[in-house]
C-alpha cells in the first residue's frame, strides 16, 4: 500500500497501481481539470490545464519537500509519500491563465455550438477562468471543413489537445488526422485524399473536449441539455459495447460509448454508433395481424394485444407440434420466458437459437478494439437458456431442417433484427405450416407467410440482460418506449405465462439466478460493467 496526500487528505492506493496525479486526486474526490490527457491515449502533457504543485513526504521524518515549480498532473506518477496540492493560489492562477490563453483565439460561439452544455472549455471557464477578457477582441470567425464522411471540423474552436490525432494513430491505427502549421496558426487536418473514414471515426467526436469535431449525424439535431441518457448495451454485434442511449421524448438522438474496462474500454464503432436509426424507421411493423390457419394471405385482421395473449396460445395449441426460434436479439429473460411459454403450449416444443447474422470476419484495431462479425448481441445468453430446456446446441439451421422435415405443425419465429435477414428461398420451408408466428421489426418474405404477424422492439426499447462474446452479462433498462401500442416481447411472454402486474425483467433475472447454476452470477444488483457469467463455474 502507498499513501498519497491530496490537499492534506491521506488516501491509500494499491502497491501495484500505477496512477498519475489526476487519477490519485480523483480517488480523494478532487477533480484536476485536464484537456489533453485521456486514460486511453498516450500522455502528451501539452494543454497544461492539469498543472499542480507536488512534493514528497519523507517517510522517516514526515517532512514535506515541495517541487519548486508547477508540474502536469497527467505526467506525474504518484508513489508512497507523494503530496499533491490542487487548490493553491499558484495552481488557480495557472488554470485561469490557461483558460484565458485558450479563449484568445476561440470564437466563443457557444450559442450556435453543438457542444455547448457538455463542453470542457465552457465548464472549466466557469470553474477556473476569470471573468475579464484582457486580450483584444477578434472579429468572429467560423471556418469548418469536412474531415470525413461523418465528422466536421470547426477549425476555430479547436484547442489543440490532439486527443483526436492520437486516437487515430494509437487506437484506430489509420492515422488520418494530423497537425498542420505551427504555433497559434496550427490546425487539425487530414492528409489530402485520405479522409477520416475508419470504422472508429466517431470516437474522435466524443474525445473532443470542445466543439471542434462535430458528428454530422447529430449536428444541430438537439441541444444536449434536453437529452436524457440511459446506460444501455449496443446490440450491433456480439461485442456488446456498453453505451449510453441519449434520447428525448422517446426519440434516440445519439449513442455514446460508456466506459467499461471489461468490454469496450472507452470506445465504440461507427456501425454501432449510428445503428439506431432503424428504431425510428417508418416501415416498422406496428400492428398485430392474424389470419386463420389455411386462409389466404391478405385475409388477416388486426388484433388488440390483450387478445393476443389468449388467442395465440389457443392457435398454437390447436396446431400441434411447435418449433420456436429464440432470437439472439432477445434478452436472456425474454428467452427464458419464451421457452417456458413454448413448453407450456407443447411440452415437446422444438427450441433453437434464432438466425445469427454474420458479416465478414472479426476486425481488431491496433488499440485492441474489436468489431465482431457476429451481428447480434446475445447468442451466448440464448444458447445458455436453451441448454436449461434441454435444447442446447440447437441452431437456426437445425430448426429449418426440423420444419422442412415436416416434424412441426406450427413455428414461432422471433426476430427483432434491425434489417433484412431472410429471403424467399430461406423462408420457403415455413410455407406449409398450419400456423406461423413471426415477431419482427420489419416485414420480410417470412412474415409474408405468417398467420400471426407480431411487432418486435428494438434494442433501446428493451430491458433485460445480454451475454456478449466473452460471456459478460450486462443488464440494462429500457431507454425509450416502443412506438405506441407495441408490446416488448418480454411483456407478451410475461402475460402469456399468466404472471401478474407489469413485466419486471429484474424479477425474472433474479428468479433465473436462483433456479439455475448457469445464471447464478446474475443474482442481486449487477454492476454497471456487468459480470462474467462463468464466474462461478471458474471458481
Amino acid at each position: 500500500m502507498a499513501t498519497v496526500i491530496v490537499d492534506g487528505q491521506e488516501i491509500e492506493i494499491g502497491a501495484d497501481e500505477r496512477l498519475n496525479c489526476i487519477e490519485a486526486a480523483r480517488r480523494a474526490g478532487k477533480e484536476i481539470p485536464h484537456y489533453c490527457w485521456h486514460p486511453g491515449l498516450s500522455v502528451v502533457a501539452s494543454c497544461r490545464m492539469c498543472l499542480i504543485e507536488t512534493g514528497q513526504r519523507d517517510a522517516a521524518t514526515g517532512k514535506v519537500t515541495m517541487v519548486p515549480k508547477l508540474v502536469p498532473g497527467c505526467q506525474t506518477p504518484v508513489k508512497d509519500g507523494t503530496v499533491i496540492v490542487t487548490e493553491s493560489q499558484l495552481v488557480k492562477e495557472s488554470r485561469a491563465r490557461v483558460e484565458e490563453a485558450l479563449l484568445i483565439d476561440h470564437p466563443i460561439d457557444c450559442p450556435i455550438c453543438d457542444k455547448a452544455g457538455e463542453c470542457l472549455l465552457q465548464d472549466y471557464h466557469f470553474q477556473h477562468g476569470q471573468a475579464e477578457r484582457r486580450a483584444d477582441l477578434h472579429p468572429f470567425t467560423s471556418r469548418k471543413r469536412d474531415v470525413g464522411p461523418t465528422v466536421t471540423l470547426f477549425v476555430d474552436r479547436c484547442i489543440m489537445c490532439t486527443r483526436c490525432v492520437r486516437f487515430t494513430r494509437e487506437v484506430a491505427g489509420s492515422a488520418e488526422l494530423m497537425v498542420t502549421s505551427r504555433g497559434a496558426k496550427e490546425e487539425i487536418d487530414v492528409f489530402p485524399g485520405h479522409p477520416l473514414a475508419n470504422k472508429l471515426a466517431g470516437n474522435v467526436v466524443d474525445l473532443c473536449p470542445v466543439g471542434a469535431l462535430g458528428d454530422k449525424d447529430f449536428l444541430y439535431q438537439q441541444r444536449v441539455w434536453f437529452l436524457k441518457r440511459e446506460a444501455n448495451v449496443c446490440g450491433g454485434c456480439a461485442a456488446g459495447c456498453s453505451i449510453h442511449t441519449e434520447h428525448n421524448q422517446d426519440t434516440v438522438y445519439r449513442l455514446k460509448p460508456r466506459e467499461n474496462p471489461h468490454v469496450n474500454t472507452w470506445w465504440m464503432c461507427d456501425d454501432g454508433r449510428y445503428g439506431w436509426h432503424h428504431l425510428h424507421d417508418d416501415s416498422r411493423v406496428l400492428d398485430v395481424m392474424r389470419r386463420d390457419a389455411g386462409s389466404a394471405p391478405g385475409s388477416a385482421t388486426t388484433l388488440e394485444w390483450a387478445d393476443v395473449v389468449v388467442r395465440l396460445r389457443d392457435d398454437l395449441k390447436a396446431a400441434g407440434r411447435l418449433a420456436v426460434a429464440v432470437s439472439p436479439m432477445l434478452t436472456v429473460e425474454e428467452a427464458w420466458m419464451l421457452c417456458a411459454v413454448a413448453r407450456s403450449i407443447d411440452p415437446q416444443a422444438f427450441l433453437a437459437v434464432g438466425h445469427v447474422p454474420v458479416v465478414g470476419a472479426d476486425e481488431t484495431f491496433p488499440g485492441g478494439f474489436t468489431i465482431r462479425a457476429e451481428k447480434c448481441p446475445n447468442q451466448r445468453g440464448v444458447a445458455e437458456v436453451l441448454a436449461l430446456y434441454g435444447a442446447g446446441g440447437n441452431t437456426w439451421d437445425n430448426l429449418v431442417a426440423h420444419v422442412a422435415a415436416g416434424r412441426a405443425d406450427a413455428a414461432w419465429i422471433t426476430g427483432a433484427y434491425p434489417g433484412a435477414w431472410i429471403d424467399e428461398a430461406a423462408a420457403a420451408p415455413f410455407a406449409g405450416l398450419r400456423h406461423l408466428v413471426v415477431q419482427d421489426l420489419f416485414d420480410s418474405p417470412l412474415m409474408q407467410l405468417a398467420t400471426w404477424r407480431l411487432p418486435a422492439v428494438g434494442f433501446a426499447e428493451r430491458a433485460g440482460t445480454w451475454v456478449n462474446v466473452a460471456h459478460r452479462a450486462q443488464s440494462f433498462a429500457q431507454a425509450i418506449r416502443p412506438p405506441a401500442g407495441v408490446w416488448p416481447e418480454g411483456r407478451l411472454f410475461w402475460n402469456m405465462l399468466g404472471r401478474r402486474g407489469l413485466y419486471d425483467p429484474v424479477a425474472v433475472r433474479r428468479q433465473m439466478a436462483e433456479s439455475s447454476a448457469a445464471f447464478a452470477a446474475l443474482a442481486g444488483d449487477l454492476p454497471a460493467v456487468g459480470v462474467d457469467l462463468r464466474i462461478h463455474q471458474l471458481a
Partner: protein
Amino acid sequence: MQPFKPVLLEAVGVPDGHSIASYKSRGGYAPLEATLAGKQPLDVVEMVKASGLRGRGGAGFPTGLKWTFLPKDHPGPIYLCVNADESEPGTFNNRIMMEDDPHQVIEGIILSSYATRATTAYIYLRYEYPQSWHRLQAAIDEAYAAGYLGKNIRGTGFSLDIYLHRGAAAYICGEETGLIESLEGKRAWPRIKPPFPAIEGLFRKPTVVNNIETMACVAQIARRGVDWFKSIGVPADPANPRDPGSYGPKLYCLSGHVEKPGCYEAPLGITARELIDRFGGGVWQGRRAKAVIPGGISMGLMTEGELDTPLDFAGPGKVGCLGLGTAAVVVIDDQTSIVDFLHNSCRFFAHESCGQCTPCREGTSWSLRLLERIKAGKGRLRDLDILLELGNTMGMMPGSTICGLADGAAWPIKNAIKKFRGEFEDYIKRTNPSGWMVTDPVPALQIVGAH
C-alpha cells in the same frame, strides 16, 4: 590579457583547410588513432569529465556527466545525435566550424561515439546551411575513405556510421527531443521528460545529443590535453557549489551594431565590453551600446552598464539574463528602439513556437499581438503589465511548458520591460496620447503574419 591563439578556428583562412590532408597536417586524427589504439571508452569519458567541458549548445550541461547518464551495459544500439540545427538568432559559430574545419567536428564525433559506445551518429543540420552540408558530407566521405568511419575502424572492432540529416528549417528542431522526433520523421514536438534521451531517446534507444562545438572541443581536448583545456576560462566559484566552472575556448558570434562583426574565439569569461572593443572594433559609428544580447536572442538583454559581465556560463545570469546560451553577442546601439527589438523578438518566437503547450503557443502569439498594437500607436500601459506577466509565467522554469523555447521567448520580454520600462512607457504615451490609459478590451488589429 594574454593574446589568445585560436584553436577551434585554426583552420580559418588556411587554404583547403577543410580537407582531411590539411586537418591531419595540423595534428588531426592522430589523437583519435592513439585513443583507439590505447584507451578504453571509459578513459575518454573520464578525460572529458576531468576537462570540465560544458555543452556549447546553450544550456551548458557538463558533457562528461551527460554521457554517464547512459545505461551501463546496454545491449545497444546507442545513438549520438549531433545538434547542428543552429537557429538561434545571432548564432553562426557552428557554421564556421562545419564549413572551415569539418574534420575537427568529425573527429570529435568519433571520439564521443567511442566514449559512449554509440555505433551510429546523426548530424542534424540546419536546412539553411548548404555549404556546411556539402563540406560535411565531403568530409564524412573522406573519413570513410581514410578508414576512420565504417566497420571495424583501425582493426579495433569499433564501428561507426555517421549520417548527415538535413532539417527543414524549424527552430524547435534545435531542442534535443524535438530534434529526435524530427530525426524519427515526426513533427518536431519536444517530448515530455522523463524519460530523458540518455535512457530513451532516438528510436526509443539511449541517446546522447551534443552540439557541434562541443564535438570540436572533445577533439581538441584529446589533442591538447585536459590541462590545456582547464588552463583556459573561469574556475568554479567556490561560493556556489552548483557552478562547475567554465573552462576552455569559446566561439563568440559578434553581430549587430559593431564595426567588425564576426565569429571570434576567446577564453570563456571574456567580458562583453572587451569582446566588443577588442574584437569588434567598438560599437559602430562611434555610438554607444544601448543593450547587448549575451548569447542569442533568447537569453535576454544586458544594458550598457552591465557590459563588464564576464561571458561565462555563470555570468549573464547574474545580471538577470537567462544564461550564456550560444554566446551569440548582438549589440544594439543607442539609436535603436527597444520596442522594435522586442517586436522582432516576439515575432520570431511566435513564428517558431511549435504549438504544443498552450502557454507558449498562445503566449508567444499574444505577446506579438501586444507588440504589434504598441508599434501601431495603440499601445496601453496595461499591455506592459500583461507582457510582463506572460514573460514571468511561460516556460519550463515556472513549469508551464515542456521545453525551453518559451523560456527563451520570455526572457527578452522580461529583460526588455524590466530594464527599459521607461522607454516603453514613453513610446506608448507619445504614440497613443488619447488611449494609453485604457484598460477595457480593445478590438484586434489586422496583423500581417510572419509567414
